[in-house]
């Protein structure tokens, strides 16, 4: 297909026209020229002919001068490159045009071979830009796909943790012939699995649904550990929990940690508190326990223990924020009293508000 070039020249300079018509004849087989003598008409033609690559713009024109037209082209047709036509003596206007984003210029009287060369060079530049642009957009969509896949993989890895711990507990009740507890536990467990299966088909679920699953999980753990801890959930009344969304199972690993490494070793009077509120464009969730604290917990844990769940969750929060987080998304505070004794651990998670 022939490349399209629009020429905007006001017809006052007969010599110009003659040369341009010569150019027309010479380049007829390579390019298609569209003529107009008026800037307003040029803008209309650019809308009609989306495939125009180059605008040849005379600087000195009545009604709309070439520099004004150049501005319009830059804003409304950024894919079109402009070549200015001007008298050699008018260097100051040429400089302005170049600074405003014109790609090149030719001087009057127009030299035919210079014009041909300039057009070829400009087209080459346009092609390079387009190749780069399409590579960039392809790269972007690949990245997006990669994050989606990563999210799926993370979700898939998270579930087995739950499942086997719970199955183990149920087995325990059966072995101890505790029929009622086994049944109660099993019903809760199946409800939780159902929720997890449903929720994990989505990338984002409402806070309500996330907390429903989390509550079931905590109830199961409380049963498993014979109610060694109490649980309190505080949701700010101004938080819209049915519309604001979070990635599914985003909180569970932190709660799991608080229970297993903070509250269970403590033996009694455990308290687990979860709060959720909105602050500006942030959703802030805290998970606090009055457990034995991280220092003691790390003494108990095997040397190389690293919470996979927490690692994966932090990764998920990062991916969710597209690596462009403007605030720290996760903070861990060791709670201590004035004598420096551990009072527990507090996790603060900040997520963007998504609806």
């Amino acid at each position, binding site marked *: 297909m022939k490349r399209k070039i629009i020429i905007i020249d006001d017809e006052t300079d007969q010599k110009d026209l003659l040369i341009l018509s010569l150019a027309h004849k010479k380049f007829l087989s390579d390019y298609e020229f569209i003529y107009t003598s008026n800037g307003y008409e040029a803008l209309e033609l650019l809308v009609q002919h989306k495939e125009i690559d180059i605008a040849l713009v005379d600087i000195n024109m009545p009604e709309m001068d070439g520099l004004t037209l150049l501005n319009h082209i830059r804003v409304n047709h950024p894919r079109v490159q402009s070549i200015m036509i001007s008298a050699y003596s008018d260097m100051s206007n040429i400089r302005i045009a170049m600074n405003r984003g014109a790609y090149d210029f030719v001087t009057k009287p127009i030299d035919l071979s210079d014009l041909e060369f300039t057009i070829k060079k400009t087209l080459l530049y346009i092609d390079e830009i387009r190749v780069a642009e399409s590579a960039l957009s392809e790269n972007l969509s690949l990245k997006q796909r990669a994050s989606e896949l990563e999210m799926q993989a993370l979700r898939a890895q998270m579930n087995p943790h739950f499942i086997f711990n719970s199955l183990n507990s149920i087995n325990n009740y059966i072995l101890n012939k505790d029929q009622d507890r086994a049944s109660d536990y*099993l*019903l809760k467990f*199946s*409800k939780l699995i*159902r929720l997890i*299966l*449903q929720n994990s088909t989505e990338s984002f679920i409402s806070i309500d649904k996330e907390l429903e699953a989390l509550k079931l999980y905590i109830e199961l753990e409380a049963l498993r550990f014979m109610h060694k801890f109490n649980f309190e959930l505080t949701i700010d*009344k*101004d*938080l*819209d929990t*049915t*519309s*604001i969304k979070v990635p599914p199972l985003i909180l569970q690993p932190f709660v799991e940690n608080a229970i297993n490494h903070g509250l269970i070793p403590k033996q009694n009077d455990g308290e687990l508190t979860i709060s959720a509120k909105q602050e500006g464009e942030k959703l802030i969730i805290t998970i606090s326990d009055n457990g034995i604290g991280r220092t003691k917990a790390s003494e108990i844990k095997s040397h190389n223990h690293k919470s996979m769940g927490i690692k994966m969750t932090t990764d998920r929060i990062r991916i969710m924020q597209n690596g462009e987080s403007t605030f720290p998304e996760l903070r861990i505070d060791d709670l201590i009293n004035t004598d420096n004794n551990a009072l527990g651990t507090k996790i603060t998670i900040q997520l963007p508000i998504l*609806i």
Partner: protein
Amino acid sequence: MTKALLVDDEPEAISALKFLIQVHCPTLEVIDTCLSVNDGISSIINNRPDLIFLDIEMPIRNGFELLEEIKQFPITIIFTTAHHQHAIKAIRYSALDYLLKPIDPKELVIAVNRFHIQKSIPDTRQVQFLIDQLQSKEHTTKKIAIPNMEGFKLISVDDIISCEADDNYTHIKLKKNIKITASRTLKEIQHLLEDYSYFLRIHNSYLVNIKEVSGYIKGEGGQVIMSDGSQLSVSRNKKETLLKYLTK
């Protein structure tokens, strides 16, 4: 006594449900148990049960096929299923009842109570609607059955303007000034409509169709003006979400 029939291809499932009914449902008498659809159909013809607990996934013929054959009988069905998203949705849209396996005794009692409260005899149109739902893959009909005191009412989702909570009931306003009272809580109605993203809970008591909002009056939470002229309060915590929805 209410005569109940259990149909499930798994003997363990039958035994578990029978046990739960004996312990928790004194009003029911299990008159027969069947391990296949064909046995179920002959038992229905011979024993005329009032209530059937019907499994969906069974080899050879499934629960819906049984339903097709017995739709002329005035029998209430409670489906039992382990996991069948598509079917569960269709059942909910048809205002029929179901229990998920493993069956929670509390949910069993609620379903049986609901059966007793229901004054009307089961409507064959409801079963037909379910069968249509199952055949239309994407629920393209945009129709749902809303249970009310008389049985159920088939409505088009897009006709809903607003839903207002009233304890265990929900008043639903439809286009053309039609009002119906559903014998379900607003939460249940919201759950029923969750596939339709243009329904928004703007208040503890109100669920609205965003497409039918014609104006907004500023205030602490403010109020929306619906296409029927009614004005509904917006909760403070819902204001921001609502405005985002409206400008989408």
